[in-house]
């Protein structure tokens, strides 16, 4: 399998503090690659560094093009969509305005979004800030799916959601991953097991493990690197 994204020696700093250190990994051009690690190891920071939202160094090649010197909007315009941690919908705008803002292409995927999230179409005129957490997550995902992207960077999409909504979001991610490769940061290992074929594990801002997802999740590496057992994962 070839790679859509190649990262070599990525380092990132926030206010002078090193949050990602010399990270190297690849993201396959199909399916879901999960970026795992304990809290605070730099998973979200890695995603933000890839997008140029943090000061960074190192080489990032996207589908054969170097993107590590580009500004964020240029990186996104290459076909990389971002679903941020905590959704970050524009709370003062309506659902429809949130989605319209995300439309980059001449022919946005409104039909795909409508099929995946019919509830959002019903709530088009509702202010996004008044939606539930799960509905806001749908807006956030829908924004990323509005265009024909070549890579999705999805940061903790099930964080803080009720179990029922986690199921809905997981299904939406699965459908999205059938069309577009994904780099997924996720703490919920059941979601990782359902979606990911490869895992990249970070510790202290560095990559400490890369390999097939099922193999990793069934081994004691889960406990060593994430601090949870497979029993806890099932629970």
């Amino acid at each position, binding site marked *: 399998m070839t790679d859509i994204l190649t990262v070599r020696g990525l380092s990132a700093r926030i206010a002078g503090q090193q949050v990602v250190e010399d990270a190297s990994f690849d993201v396959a051009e199909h399916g879901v690659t999960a970026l795992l690690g304990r809290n605070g190891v730099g998973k979200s920071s890695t995603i933000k560094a890839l997008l140029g*939202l943090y000061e960074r160094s190192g080489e990032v090649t996207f589908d054969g093009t170097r993107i590590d010197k580009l500004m964020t909007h240029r990186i996104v315009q290459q076909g990389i969509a971002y679903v941020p941690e905590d959704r970050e919908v*524009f709370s*003062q*705008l309506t659902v429809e305005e949130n989605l319209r803002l995300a439309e*980059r292409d001449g022919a946005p995927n409104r039909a795909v979004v409508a099929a995946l999230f019919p509830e959002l179409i019903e709530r088009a005129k509702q202010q996004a800030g008044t939606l539930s957490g799960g509905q806001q997550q749908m807006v956030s995902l829908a924004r990323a799916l509005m265009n024909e992207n070549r890579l999705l960077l999805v940061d903790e999409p099930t964080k803080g959601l009720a179990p029922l909504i986690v199921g809905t979001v997981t299904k939406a991610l699965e459908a999205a991953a059938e069309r577009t490769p994904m780099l997924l940061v996720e703490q919920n290992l059941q979601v990782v097991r359902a979606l990911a074929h490869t895992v990249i594990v970070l510790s202290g801002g560095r990559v400490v493990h890369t390999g097939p997802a099922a193999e990793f999740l069934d081994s004691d590496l889960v406990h060593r690197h994430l601090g949870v057992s497979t029993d806890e994962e099932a629970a």
Partner: protein
Amino acid sequence: MSIIILLLITGVGLGALYFLVASGLSLIYGLMGVLNFAHGSFLTIAGFIGWEVGRRVGDGTWSGLLIGMLVGVVVGAVVAALTELVFIRPLYNRHIEQVLVTVGLGLASVALFEGIWGTDPIQIRLPGWLGQTTNVLGANIPNDRWLLIGAAVAVLLLIVLFLQRTSYGLVIRAGVENRTMVTALGIDVRRAFTIVFAIGGAAAGLGGVLASVYYGQVSAHQGTSLLIFAFIVTVIGGLGSLTGAAIASVLVAVIQQFANFYGGWGDFAVVLALALVLLFRPTGLMGKVKH
């Protein structure tokens, strides 16, 4: 009763002038996180050039004044857009440096204006009607206040229409809430920066010409003195909130008028109001915590 009506309406008139300056300041801060200390310079240069053109078209006539206002709008917009493109954009995401540049521009431009037009205020001639009054329930309201109020209402409506009905308006509203996320959707937010500067500059430019109507003179320091109150209005209204700026403009000016009339402590009352808002509602009347 007539005194109260007089103070209320003249207060709203002064508030209209504050709003013309504060609206741009608030939008610029809301979107870019930059407190623009050069904003007063947009007002002053537009006031001078508007007056220079207006008096050549017809000194003391409506045509001269209206052309002057139009020129003021254009000059304010162009100078503001150039300021953003030349001085602010190269310092993208370096907010402290951006603020320092605007401070420098604000100071240097006053010296430049003094060099060109002198240090003394220049008295201007206005159409006769503006020097007269209109009786409202026994209160003789100076007619120039109606012009100020009308202009501010028109500017408010135009900005609201722009923000609500255009794609750049949508980007600006989103950017005021969360600029980083706008960028992360693939939008070059810097274009919106230039537009916001131009809109703010245009409103300040109109404010510059109307300030000369209000005070009956143009001066190199006009922008600086109005900028102080515009900053207070912007903070009280809530940084980034146009509605907040509109409400706070009227509140501050009316408080100032009443306090000035009943004891001559208008400026102190304004600072007191600012202190109270900062103590009890630090985000301002309509401000929100930004991401």
